């Protein structure tokens, strides 16, 4: 496949997404305040901060999922490969196809495993059965789930364990060929073993995808991410390489949060 050469051709550490002057409001609540932030291509960026700090809201702004909330208002620009995803000529549907999302609670559809993964392809207009079957297999392999489910692709996705369901959701997301994957606390409802699998998967996916992950767990951020951004009260307090941030935070708030003095 040509993907490897593609990957090699592009210089690493390019900026994939740029956030410029982003403000998000929920009704009167100013949830995100003036965030400027760059997300590096093919890396894992962790968003951390206490509950209600706006990190999930910011994440949902990256693929315009906030559009589905009526009281939500957005200001600013978010660029994907240099293009403003909030431009009037851009349909959020296309944004979401290129910026996928995995939710906190695994949410497979009450359909078969196969149909779950194929959903995104089918609604995207793919009709060739062979192509669909191939992509479903690839995606399940990509999400490290293939070996566990290959014999029961037609059985209900609801019969899978919590961890498997979450990996299925990741596979479902991979199937539409996203470039960026947003993960909203993807392991918060899972046991340690399932969490470890998801984390390993994230490290593997980094080779090919840009990943932004919201996490409550400082250790998780340290384990999986290359970059970390710390949000507090809707503001981006500090961001940088994960190693630097955890060893030498430059702001006092960050240090207090990381050392567990609040949160």
């Amino acid at each position, binding site marked *: 496949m*040509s*993907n490897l050469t593609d990957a090699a051709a592009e210089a690493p550490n390019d900026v994939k997404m740029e956030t410029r002057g982003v403000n998000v409001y929920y009704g009167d609540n100013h949830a995100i305040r003036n965030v400027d932030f760059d997300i590096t291509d093919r890396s894992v960026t962790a968003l951390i901060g206490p509950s209600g700090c706006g990190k999930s809201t910011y994440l949902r702004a990256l693929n315009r999922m906030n559009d589905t909330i009526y009281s939500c208002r957005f200001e600013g620009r978010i660029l994907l490969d240099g293009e403003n995803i909030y431009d009037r000529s*851009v*349909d959020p*549907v296309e944004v979401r196809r290129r910026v996928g999302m995995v939710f906190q609670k695994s949410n497979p559809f009450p359909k078969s495993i196969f149909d779950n993964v194929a959903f995104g392809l089918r609604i995207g207009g793919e009709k060739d059965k062979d192509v669909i079957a191939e992509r479903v297999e*690839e995606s399940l392999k990509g999400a*490290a789930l293939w070996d566990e489910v290959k014999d029961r692709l037609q059985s209900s996705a609801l019969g899978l364990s919590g961890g498997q369901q979450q990996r299925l959701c990741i596979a479902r997301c*991979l199937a539409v060929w996203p470039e960026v994957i947003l993960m909203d606390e993807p392991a918060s409802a899972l046991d340690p073993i399932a969490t470890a699998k998801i984390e390993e998967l994230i490290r593997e996916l980094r080779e090919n995808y840009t990943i932004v992950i919201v996490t409550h767990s400082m250790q998780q951020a340290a384990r999986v991410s290359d970059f970390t951004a710390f949000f507090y009260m809707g503001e981006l307090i500090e961001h940088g390489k994960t190693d630097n941030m955890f060893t030498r935070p430059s702001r006092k708030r960050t240090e207090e949060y990381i050392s567990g003095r609040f949160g």
Partner: protein
Amino acid sequence: MTERVLEASERTRAAKTRQRISVRPQSAKSKLAGSFHTPLWHRVAERLIAILALAAVLAIALIFVFIAREAVPMLWEAEFAEEVQIRDLFFAKEWKGYDEPVFIWQPVGEPAKFNVVPLFIGSLKVTLLAMLMSVPLGVGCAMFIALYAPRAVREVVKPVIELLAGIPSVVLGFFALMVLASWAQATFGFHFRLNAFVAAIGLALTIVPVIFTISEDAIQAVPSTLTEAALALGARKYQVALRVVLPAAIPGIAAGVVLGFGRAIGETMIVLMASGNAAIMELFDFSTSVRTVTATIAAELGEVAQGDPHWRVLFLLGVMLFGVTFVLNILGDLFIQRLQKRLTAS
């Protein structure tokens, strides 16, 4: 040592992964802007859905307009003015042959007498009588089910009452006419076989499910923290039921009563078949026959020529009925809203 092995195995696994995941090829990448268009038929379908959603609003408006359209010409039509004076529709008049002003509905009389008051009195009388029966029964059932009945009984009774709600009113009317009327006459010795009492029982059967369902919901919705608090203070179960649960559920029960009232006053087939249909101005004696607004419309409209004064008056009855139930509905909604507010505030 082991660490290095692990690292190595991870590297090989990562290499494998790289092979098996395919990403969006460079050639497939396109500009975001304008690259995706919602299919036209989605937009057409969505527009259609939004338009169809207005059907209910349109229906309400059309109902009002087109019933009023048949009634309102009475204000200026010469033909109507010749036969009927609008004042006489609502106020008593001393007709020829009577020695005092009376309220009277006698469309086939000479002259025809269209006073709507006896009809509304009739409707009110049957309805109130039905409410007297169905409110205690409905609320009682709801309390029993919500507070005392074992789970198994509840599981059976709720569908059974739903079943009752599903019986067509013509069947209830038939039951009242054929079975209840004979039973009531034999038991109470009524002079008239069909009367307000018999019709009211039939009506009660239609509104008990309404009152039961809403009251039961309201009682169930009383937070358990409230009842537990009372029980913890040493209250007996009946005290909790009467002093805590019932007062908290009162707005819901009131809503049930109001909506049940609206349902009863608008009910047609039962009163048409079982009330005897004589327009007698008599408020308290429920052993006499009555004629309600609804039954009058149902029984007389078929025999009137379109545009006739009688026709206009019957449509006027429809407009008034529509108005009354409209107000009752809004009242019922208000009670339900108040219930929700009260429960969420407490």
